[in-house]
């Protein structure tokens, strides 16, 4: 069976290089199953399109928009296990389950991602140093594969396929449903400590000394600061709060959030609004305005999703879009991180604050991004010389044994990714068996030759 197609210009969240794709958008599982059985064109599934690059873009074939496959199947309040379709968003899960005392075990910096998208990139959150990444909380998935139909995969059943799918950017199959273990919480609030760090060493030392006391840890870095202030940051670390320690006004309704009006960026900003000077002023102000503070009670929305309050904030970068650069260095390569920051600060390529985090142990996901080390994430607006500049950052990263994140990447070369992900070979072997006729493909998979 075929599904109606729509010709739609799409790109990643960075709106870098949009292309027209043939999209289908199933709403029913029986129609989806019939479509997958008979379809002969290369396809890639797409969630909420929050990957920054071309992971869920496919110009040669079809894009399967999964956002309407978003039904909850079952929930067990005893175990906290949620079974749902792949297109259910994390925002939906929070709306439904926070009032019942459950939170996401891992969440990225936006709640507008789908469960399947979170598995396909094996996303990480501020708790990576103690909890690991998203797929590690997935009990099992139903995966449609071209060669073997629908498979149940879990860390114990079809385990090799499960760990190829975690971080496998949609190239092992279509994730139909997932069983996810939610985290039991006592309130919707996080108790946060804010700490300013004058430079990179101070930041990393503080993380090393006391990250272990916090479930969540992240630093916002002013990456325009140079010299002695290079890497100055505000550390924001916290833990879930017990209801009985909340201030009185909140203690009686510990799961309720304060109402907040949403803001929308209605049009593209002209390219000049975010320039070196305006961003520098913003960053300086951000650092200056923040004071050290302890035990600040913040609701989860504000702590985890500061940008989600501004809809379509990606339009701030104007029509040409931007890329996001996420680089992870192994723990022993602090020097590499310093060099990267120096290069960024010196380049004058405006970026808002960058995010710095210390990762914990890697997940078994073959192409999962996190590995023990430091990860730095920042936006770089599209402009003259972008490709060459990013290529120079990639070389630096490689030199220090670091790696890029496929969810963010838009520009890397295949050789670089091959060197960064030693498990790529195993991934390719597993993939070849599941998809011998190459029916799963994306612009990302072709650009990076993930098929070999």
């Amino acid at each position, binding site marked *: 069976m075929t599904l*109606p197609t*729509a010709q739609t210009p799409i790109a990643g969240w960075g709106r870098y290089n949009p292309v027209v794709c043939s999209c289908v958008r199933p*709403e*029913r*599982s*029986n129609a989806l199953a019939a479509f997958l059985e008979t379809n002969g064109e290369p396809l890639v599934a797409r969630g909420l399109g929050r990957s920054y690059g071309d992971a869920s873009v496919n110009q040669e074939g079809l894009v399967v928009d999964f956002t309407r496959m978003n039904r*909850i*199947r*079952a929930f067990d309040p005893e175990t906290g296990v949620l079974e749902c379709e792949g297109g259910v968003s994390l925002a939906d899960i929070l709306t*439904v389950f926070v009032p019942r005392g459950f939170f996401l075990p891992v969440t990225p910096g936006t709640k507008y991602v789908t469960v399947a998208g979170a598995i396909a990139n094996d996303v990480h959150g501020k708790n990576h140093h103690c909890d690991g990444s998203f797929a590690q909380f997935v009990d099992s998935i139903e995966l449609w594969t071209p060669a073997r139909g629908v498979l149940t995969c879990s860390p114990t059943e079809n385990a090799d396929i499960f760990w190829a799918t975690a971080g496998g950017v949609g190239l092992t199959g279509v994730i139909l449903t997932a069983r996810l273990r939610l985290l039991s919480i006592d309130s919707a609030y996080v108790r946060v400590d804010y700490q300013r760090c004058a430079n990179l060493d101070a930041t990393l030392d503080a993380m090393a000394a006391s990250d272990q006391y916090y479930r969540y840890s992240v630093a916002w870095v002013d990456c325009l600061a140079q010299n002695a202030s290079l890497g100055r940051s505000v550390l924001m670390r916290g833990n879930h709060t017990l209801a009985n320690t909340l201030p009185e006004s909140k203690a009686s309704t510990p799961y309720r959030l304060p109402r907040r009006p949403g803001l929308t960026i209605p049009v593209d900003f002209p390219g000049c609004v975010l320039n070196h000077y305006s961003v520098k002023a913003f960053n300086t102000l951000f650092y200056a305005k923040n004071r050290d503070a302890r035990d600040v009670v913040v609701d989860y929305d504000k702590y985890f999703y500061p940008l989600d309050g501004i809809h379509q904030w990606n339009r701030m970068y104007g029509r040409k879009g931007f890329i996001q650069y996420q680089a992870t260095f192994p723990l022993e390569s602090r020097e590499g991180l310093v060099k990267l920051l120096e290069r960024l600060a010196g380049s004058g390529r405006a970026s808002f604050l960058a995010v710095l985090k210390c990762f914990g142990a890697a997940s078994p996901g073959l192409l999962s991004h996190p590995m023990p080390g430091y990860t730095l994430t920042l936006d770089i607006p599209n402009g003259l010389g972008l490709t060459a500049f990013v290529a120079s950052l990639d070389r630096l990263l490689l030199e220090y044994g670091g790696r890029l994140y496929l969810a963010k990447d838009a520009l890397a070369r295949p050789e670089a990714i091959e060197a960064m992900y030693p498990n790529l070979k195993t991934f390719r072997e597993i993939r070849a068996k599941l998809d011998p006729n190459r029916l799963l493909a994306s612009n990302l998979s072709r650009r990076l030759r993930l098929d070999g």
Partner: protein
Amino acid sequence: MTTFQPKSVVILGALSGVARYIADGFAREGFAVALAGRDLEEMELLAADLRERHEVTCCCLKFDALDIDSHASFVQETTEALGALPGGVVACFGYMADQTEAQRDFALIRKTLDTNLTGAISILERFAAAFEERQSGFMAALSSVAGDRGRKANYFYGAAKAGLSAYLQGLRNRLHASGVKVTTIKPGFMDTPMTYGMDLPGALVAAPQSAAQAMTRAILKGKNVVYVPFFWRYIMWIIRSIPEWQFKKMSI
């Protein structure tokens, strides 16, 4: 908001792209929901979703707008499934054929009229009788802005929806005395399977989630006629006020 008793609703055509979110809206308000449509297996998935999200009663019923004979017993079936005559009914099913194909094939025109007009009238009359007798209830149907003025681009569908709008008008008039509320919903473009892939002006296309929210609110308030989103009232006012001698030359 008007309070309706019992707090239950039947959604006809429950798998429509917008209906599933209307059902969700009622479930969120604590209504017991009966989903009615042609695909039971798929409706069960939606029912499970509504139960998990909102902890409400939800059941599924077979319903085909074209199977007029089955409509006689449908109110009874609903009453049995929900344990009482439902508080209200929302008709969401609809069918839009490709206009040029329909011009060549009367069967498609007939299906358009039978589904959107005859089928709707047939089933709504059954509920109207029951609600009138009970002296309470709410009824709503998704008509369309397409019924506000015939256009060459889809006038079979437009004719059916114009008929449906007129029917609802009369029904409202009739049921006023018995306290039954009748809401005519006139959506503009919505991003559902009905329009997926069509070349529509993006800024005018509503997400079904937000459209459904506006519809549920209007029904619960007992509104008479509501355009969704609201600005279609003004767009249609302008379109209706173009003189016929000029309109007939236009392509909109």
